[in-house]
């Protein structure tokens, strides 16, 4: 287990309960710049809760999350260094693609909002549909717009929850290439997915979560097949 010098995001002793349900049990994870972490696990393992907690949207019952060395609890503004895409797109269906991005860019206090929005639309291949309402975009386009929204402020760490679901093969490749480009510039990525194959090429590390606890956390050495076998063996999936 390599522990690179300065983690971009680090969590220790995370525990999260919802009443009598324990979603996370003493989870510790730290991710460095340029790492791509594939977070896998059966349904209900706590993957989404872990991502929301890392994003600072869910307060852990116990434990801390630090972003660039600063605790989220003491300084919630630290969320600004995080990009997060959940199952939900965070988009307003009644705003256009451009307006959605503009709103996000303004909230993040970016300097040249319009230029940034234009770049983002171009990168996502959405420039021709910039003035269409989010509601009328195709599923693939909406997903690209949601990712553009999550990365508009060029976050140091990107948290993704099932970004590949419902995308066709071409879109999967586009999305993966886009992620790789960000990683090349030093971004850290944590990605929850049921389809590890989609991310496998660029993943540097694999983490398996089961019943709220981390079962294994290793650099990606073995093949996808070995990984899937390991997941199956640990019994949860």
């Amino acid at each position: 287990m390599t522990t690179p010098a300065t983690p971009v995001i680090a969590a220790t002793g995370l525990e999260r309960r919802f009443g009598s349900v324990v979603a996370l049990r003493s989870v510790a994870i730290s991710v460095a710049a340029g790492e791509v972490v594939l977070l896998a696990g059966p349904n209900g393992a706590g993957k989404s809760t872990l991502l929301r907690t890392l994003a600072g949207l869910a307060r852990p019952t116990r434990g801390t999350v630090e972003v660039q060395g600063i605790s989220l609890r003491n300084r919630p503004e630290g969320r600004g260094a995080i990009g997060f895409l959940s199952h939900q797109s965070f988009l307003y269906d009644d705003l256009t693609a451009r307006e959605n991005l503009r709103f996000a860019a303004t909230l993040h206090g970016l300097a040249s909002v319009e230029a940034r929005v234009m770049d983002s639309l171009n990168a996502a291949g959405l420039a021709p549909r910039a003035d269409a309402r989010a509601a009328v975009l195709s599923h693939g386009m909406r997903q690209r717009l949601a990712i553009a929204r999550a990365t508009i402020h060029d976050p140091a760490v990107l948290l993704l929850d099932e970004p590949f679901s419902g995308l066709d093969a071409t879109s999967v490749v586009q999305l993966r290439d886009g992620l790789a480009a960000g990683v090349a510039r030093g971004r850290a990525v944590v990605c929850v997915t049921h389809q590890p194959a989609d991310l496998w090429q660029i993943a540097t590390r694999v983490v398996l979560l089961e019943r709220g606890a981390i079962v294994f956390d290793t650099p990606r050495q073995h093949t996808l097949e070995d990984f899937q076998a390991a997941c199956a063996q640990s019994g949860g999936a």
Partner: protein
Amino acid sequence: MNHDPAAIEKIIRRGRIITLAGFIGLLGVYILALGYTPAEKMQGLAFKILYVHAPAAWAMETAFVLVGVVGLLYFWLQDARLDVFAEASASVGMVFGAVLLITGPIWGRTIWGAWWAWDPRLTFTLLLYLMFAGYFALRSALRDPVERARFGAVIGVMGMLLVPFIHLTVYLFRSQHPMPVLGRPPCPPDAPNCAPSLPWVLLKPLLISFAVFTILYIGFVTIRYGIGLKRMMMEERDAG
């Protein structure tokens, strides 16, 4: 949070003892007020309801004020037990509020000739009661106990600020609306100092009753608090 089940049982047991003492005291108040206290000159027998009504008002107000105070403390200390106490106090407050809302109109019917004469204090009680009904409605719709505690505290604190405004509203409202029927001087049911001065023989049972209702409040809340702790502990044990 680790709670010793035995300690919780002890809390509940202590609550039961206090409550029992309170009920014995209440019986004493009834006997004293009905058997050994002369009838009041102006109001006659109806005055006797005061011995239950006024102390119940005191207990209800204490209960609800504590929900707000504990709410403030919760924002500071974030201790789940504070919310258990707040819920206990609020539910006990509802019980005393119900006593008020039943005895008040009975008294009003006899003295004013109307069940409901928009008496400021009763109207105040009703509005407060409704606010706490909303408090429980919201609580029952939330599943996450942390969220329930936080939202409960928010309503408790907002309610504290609302209290002076309701007070102002009910008094100003009454000054705008003359009473429907007024056979006798409009002396509010729970104002012992409204009459020029209450003779000691009438005042003494009242003071005793205030003490008894305070004991009842403490007893009820202790039991509810113990039960709340137990529930919390069971939830945590289920969580493993």
